[in-house]
């Protein structure tokens, strides 16, 4: 993916550069096409004007010489005229030096060059036999069509004062201007390209790389949000990316939590399964033991029936605990208060308790692990069964009270089951009954202490350390 994305940007950049270069080249060509005629006109005007200026200055020197001769009334003195003529030649030569790429030529009526045109490749014949009349503007001599020439005739000296610029010098400024234009355009294009690249890199490529780098880190779990520096498409992309990784992070946390919960659940289930198997085996062993014990006391048919009922209740109390475990989905802990409440109701039905017997409960909210819940359930079952079966006569009225106290501060669960019935005889109190035997054994099994008071009704207090 990384390679693909990088390859994806390069053609785009090359495309943009190519378009810019082509557009710049076309613009340069068009610009040159448009510019060349006025450029040529401009430099042509300048060339002509400079030539005309040169001849003007030259003839002014001649006029100045003539003026001097007239003022001094020496125009008839050949020696003075010659002196003035030579002086004019010198001054015109100095004027010529002030012009670049321009020659000032003086030709007399005998076609003698009094000032040389300079460059050796100039054909001097173009300066001979020129008309006396000054051309209105500088013109191109037939001997050198690209060149320009302008002249003035000064009759007193019989001189043609000719300003000449070679074709190369005439065209040089235009060529130079074209070079300058082309160079400028190229420089402009290069600067534009460079600027575009910088801008592209700064505004697009660099932020994109950051996003790509950040995106590449996502599979590795690196979900650092990117700084949002601009409010444009890339800024919005960054915001979207940040939103996405935030969402991914949240989901990842949820997944992590779910996994942890599932692992925990699985662990619980595994333990539970083991526990269930263990419990089932234990419970079955308990049931077997209970049945065995009970079976040893059977003497009559009624005892057998009673034994079934008792056993059924015992198994029910065990089943109730498992039922609650199933219903609460918590297979390790049991709400003891709820279990006791349900057990009371079932036992009341099982023993067909009349309206005269009231059962009052005061049960604190309490959760207890399943290991101790089953023995506790059997204890409650035995205690309540004893109270329901033995504490009252058929028409007796009475109240059975069940208290479950969560003495948290002391770390002790206190279960009190009391009735106001006949109380426990000496015989029952000395563990002769299977029920009492179970109560004692199970209390010991879960580490509890048991107090039984049968003097005024029966009061059984079981304390289990939590």
């Amino acid at each position, binding site marked *: 993916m990384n390679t693909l994305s990088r390859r994806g940007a390069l053609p785009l950049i090359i495309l943009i550069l190519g378009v810019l270069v082509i557009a710049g080249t076309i613009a340069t060509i068009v610009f040159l096409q448009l510019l060349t005629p006025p450029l040529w006109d401009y430099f042509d005007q300048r060339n002509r004007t400079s030539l005309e200026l040169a001849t003007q200055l030259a003839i002014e020197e001649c*006029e100045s010489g003539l003026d001097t001769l007239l003022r001094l009334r020496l125009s008839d003195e050949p020696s003075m005229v010659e002196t003035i003529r030579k002086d004019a030649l010198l001054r015109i030569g100095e004027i010529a030096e002030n012009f670049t790429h321009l020659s000032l030529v003086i030709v007399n009526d005998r076609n003698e060059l009094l000032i040389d045109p300079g460059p050796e490749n100039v054909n001097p014949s173009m300066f001979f036999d020129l008309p*006396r009349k000054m051309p209105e503007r500088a013109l191109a001599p037939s001997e050198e069509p690209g060149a320009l020439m302008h002249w003035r005739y000064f*009759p007193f000296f019989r001189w043609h004062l000719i300003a000449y610029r070679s074709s190369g010098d005439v065209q040089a400024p235009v060529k130079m201007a074209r070079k300058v234009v082309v160079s400028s355009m190229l420089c402009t294009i290069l600067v534009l390209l460079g600027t575009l690249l910088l801008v592209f890199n700064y505004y697009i490529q660099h932020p994109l790389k950051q996003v790509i780098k950040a995106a590449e880190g996502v599979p590795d779990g690196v979900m650092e949000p990117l700084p949002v520096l601009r409010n444009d498409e890339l800024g919005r992309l960054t915001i979207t990316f940040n939103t996405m990784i935030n969402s991914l992070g949240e989901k990842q946390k949820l997944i992590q939590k779910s996994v942890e919960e599932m692992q925990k659940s699985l662990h619980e289930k595994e333990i539970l399964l083991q526990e269930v198997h263990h419990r089932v085996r234990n419970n079955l062993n308990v049931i077997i033991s209970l049945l065995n014990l009970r079976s040893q006391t059977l003497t009559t048919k009624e005892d057998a029936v009673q034994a079934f009922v008792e056993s059924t209740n015992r198994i029910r109390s065990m089943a109730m605990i498992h039922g609650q475990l199933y219903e609460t989905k918590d297979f390790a802990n049991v709400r003891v208060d709820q279990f006791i409440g349900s057990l009371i109701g079932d036992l009341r039905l099982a023993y067909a308790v009349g309206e005269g017997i009231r059962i009052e409960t005061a049960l604190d909210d309490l959760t207890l692990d399943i290991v101790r819940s089953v023995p506790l359930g059997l204890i409650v079952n035995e205690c309540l069964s004893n109270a329901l079966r033995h504490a009252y006569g058929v028409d007796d009225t009475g109240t059975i009270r069940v208290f479950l106290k969560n003495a948290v501060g002391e770390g002790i669960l206190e279960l009190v089951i009391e009735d106001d019935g006949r109380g426990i005889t000496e015989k029952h109190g000395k563990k002769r009954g299977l029920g009492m035997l179970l109560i004692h054994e199970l209390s010991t099994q879960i580490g509890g202490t048991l107090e039984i008071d049968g003097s005024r009704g029966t009061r059984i207090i079981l304390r289990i350390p939590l």
Partner: protein
Amino acid sequence: MTARSFPLIAILFGLTISVLIVPLSGNDTAIRVGATLSLTGDYAEPSEMMYRAYRLWESQINSRGGLLGRRVELIIRDDRSDPFIAAEEYRKMIDDEGIELVLSPYSTPITAAVSEITEKRSMPMIAAGASGDILWDRGFDYLFGMYSMAHSYFIGFIDLFAREGLNGISIFYEDNAFNRDAAAGSLEWAVKMGVDVLGSRIISSDSAVIADAVAAYTARPGDGIIICAYPDAAYGILAQLEEKGVRPRAVAITIIPVHPDFSLKAGSAAEGVFGPSQWEPMERIPFPGTREFIRDFTAYTGKAPSYHAGSAYSACQIISQAVTAVGRVDRQAIRNYISDLDTVTVIGHFKNDRQGRQVGHTPLLIQWQNGRKEIVYPRSMKTADPVF
């Protein structure tokens, strides 16, 4: 009238008399300046301009308190374009009437005659209307030129003519000092400039003579004609050229083209005519007082000044300057002052050589283009390019 009021009336009368008498008494008598001008005759046209300039100066100098605190009284008489009359008038004014200063007449012949009188009387005179070489060949000490030399009048024209590539010129001239000099100078400069002179012919105001000259030109036409003549002859030949439909590429004439009314008088023949000028009333000519002179002259006379007027006024300026500088009306001192003077007047530079020739002044060449005068030479002062 009562006896009590008589002294008061006497005092008032006395005061009135004294007020009337005081300006006319004492040493504040006017400085009398004499001159003749050709108010009639051949030279009347340029002389009229000089007359108006002299009168303008008189008015201005007196309005400023006169010369040396004395009023200037200018006496101008008509010499009827006759040198002898002019010379006699100058003699009378100097010898008999006691004038203290003179101004010059117009034209070379008259100035030449008058200067014979003034020179003998050590009376300095500035030739404000003459430029013939003859004036300076006599070695006079009291005559000073205002114009550049007649000999050089057509240098600018021939120079432009030759530069234009034109060739073949005919010279027609009146046989008098000024025009001979102008024609001789034209011939000489045509040769110097490499222009062929096709013919040189004397003319006069006589129409038959003019007709012969025109015929001679027609027989051998060139690109140009130079006419050195006073107004009558000059207008005459111009009219015949026009009448016969002879239109050379270039025509140059002395004197008449500089007059503001030349175009009115010559009609369509005036168009394109060149003329040498000592000065033109164009405000771009940057001499001190030029603009004020043009303004004042036009206001005073209702006409624009010609170079004749400018030259006359400049001569007056130099006389004023000399008298003021010397501090008295002393002919010798004034002569010496002018001889050494190097100054600028309203028509330009003023400086004379030992013979009194004007060497400071630069002449102009004008051409009538589209009904108005344009300066076409020298280049530094031109208002338009020449048209051939």
